[in-house]
């Protein structure tokens, strides 16, 4: 009896070593699949047009609000942001072509090359916040278990940047709704490990994409909180999403200049 007990205990101990290993391997693949699903739900594999409203709150400064049009083309990762409000920013725009981000200011009539990590309009938002999600291409996920986020049950994962890919944030922490697979919360960390920004995605919406032949999900509301300058935050609302094909020559400097006049 005693020997049986010892055998059982040994088997249990062995299992405790082996099973988590298997579970961890499976979990890693699950995480990758989940990340791919997160990306895929937001990818429309075609053209995109939307109106965005941005509101920036900064300590000691007057709140700033912007209105802009966002255009993007999945095929070659082209991208435009064209500001329409306020009047001082009207006609200013960002254009991403050939993996370079350009900024145009009609008041000086000049194009300036900007870094991909540019803060759009000086807010706490980046170009990538308006672009298609490419998390699975850029990061390796790690399982951090489940967590309750309000009424939602979220899968928490830590994403670490893949080698040889230049990323603004080398480490991310993601909370993905287990049911809908929409991102609920995201935290971005510096190389030093310091938390820089926390983002919340409280509202998701879907729209039918002709090119994808199915629905595409997008966050209708995004809230970014600066974790170093605690009083700074940015609200972004995404409106009037349209995924019909855009003009062939739209993603050019000439087009943006013509719209800036």
């Amino acid at each position, binding site marked *: 009896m005693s020997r049986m007990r010892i055998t059982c205990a040994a088997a249990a101990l062995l299992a405790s070593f082996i099973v988590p290993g298997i579970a961890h391997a499976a979990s890693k693949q699950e995480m990758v699949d989940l990340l791919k699903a997160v990306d895929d739900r937001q990818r429309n594999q075609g053209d995109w047009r939307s109106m965005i409203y941005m509101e920036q709150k900064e*300590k*000691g400064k007057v709140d700033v609000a912007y209105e802009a049009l966002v255009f993007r083309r999945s095929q070659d990762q082209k991208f435009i942001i064209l500001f329409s409000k306020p009047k001082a920013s009207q006609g200013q725009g960002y254009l991403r072509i050939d993996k*370079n*981000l350009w900024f145009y200011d009609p008041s000086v009539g000049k194009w*300036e*090359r*900007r*870094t*991909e*990590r540019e803060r759009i309009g000086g807010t706490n938002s980046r170009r990538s916040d308006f672009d298609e999600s490419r998390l699975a291409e850029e990061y390796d996920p790690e399982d951090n278990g489940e967590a309750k986020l309000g009424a939602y049950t979220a899968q928490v994962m830590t994403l670490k*940047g893949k080698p040889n890919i*230049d*990323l*603004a*944030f*080398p480490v991310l922490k993601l909370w993905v709704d287990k049911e809908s697979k929409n991102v609920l919360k995201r935290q*971005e960390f*510096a*190389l*030093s490990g*310091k938390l*820089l920004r926390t983002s919340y995605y409280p509202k998701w919406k879907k729209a039918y994409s002709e090119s994808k032949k199915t629905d595409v999900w997008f966050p209708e509301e995004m809230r970014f909180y600066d974790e*170093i*300058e605690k009083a700074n935050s940015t609200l972004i609302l995404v409106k009037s999403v349209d995924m019909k094909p855009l003009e062939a020559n739209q993603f050019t400097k000439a087009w943006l200049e013509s719209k800036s006049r």
Partner: protein
Amino acid sequence: MTNLILDFRIALRSLFQHRRRTFFLVTAIAGVTGLLVLLNALSTGVSDTMIRAATTLSSGHVNVGGFFKVTSSQSGPVVTEFAKVAKVVEQNVPELDHWVHRGRGWAKAISDSGSMQVGVTGIDIKNEPDLRRVISVVSGRIEDLAEPNTMMVFESQVERLKVKVGDAITISAQTNRGAANTVDVRIVAIAKDMGLMSKFGTFVPIDTTRALYQLRPDTTGVIQLYVKPKFVPHVAEIAARMRVTLEKAGYLLMDADANPFWMKFQTVNREDWTGQKLDVTTWEDEVSFLTWTLKVISVLKVVLLTILIAIVITGIMNTMWIAIRERTREIGTLRAIGMQRGGVLRMFLFESFQMGLIGTVAGALAGSAIAALVNAAHIRVPLSVQLFLMSDQLHLAIDVSALAKSVFMITAITTLAALYPAYRAARLPPVSAMSHFG
């Protein structure tokens, strides 16, 4: 020679005989000279202050900096394997006194109460004797910058960030590969403001800049060369020679651009190259956005000087004409007792020369005394002036050679102004001059 001495004595005696006229003219000449001396002192003082501040805060006399581009759109102010570059410099700049290397960066400094964009200069405080001598620390110890993750800020930044010695600040920046990074530093020293540059310049240990921008230990931001004092006016030639030398040594160089490095990011990011390119600048290039003050003072000096000299020339000529008219009979008598035309000419020229010399020497002494008084009074200048002066006090610097030049120039002009009236006096026929009434 005897004649010359005699003419000189007659001229001197004549000056004393017409004391009132002499007094007014000498006072006018002294005033002009004094003003010129003060303008020169202001210009030299501003220039000295600017060189001292610029070559302490952000530049050497000559700088070998540059950019490293990981991709065509991502650049950082970095010199890789700087020891090799420094060796080339040491071997080819005989005018070199010493050199230091500093890290360069632009980041956001965030305290609990505020934030601001700052220039982050990485230094090795043990090798920065000039910095320790020139910067006036009002709180903390500059030597503590030898400790890792420390920072020295200026008084005006303290107002924005609301920090004191011992407080922590987060510095946030992007690495040259575009990744966000932060470093937490502790304020160890607060320095007295030194003009515009101290509005945004901060100092940290060089290893802190390397950690912030994820740079290797063999990299730096700039090699700052300090030449021996007598070569400071020749820094442009030394910089031009350095460009050729570095190119010969196999380094790629950026096109010469007389602007500070932080104004070059846009240009560098527009260009389609990757890797390392060096840039050679002088201290004047690095503060080119401020040297306009020197140009304004120079233009002002020329304009004022032209007006004043025109007034002096008119005054001298006019006085000489009057003197000749008043002393026509005297000239006739002198001619009748044997004085040659040359003697008459010399007599009037000597008179003018003596007035000029007395006036300019008096003016130079008065100007120098005023400059010394201004310096002793430690006059504080308004904030807007401090920005460009790079000092909170007005400093006037008397350059002895410039002083001698001023004395010589105004004396020469005064003497030459009397040339034509003296020539006309010498041409007067003795008989008609003796019978002149008026």
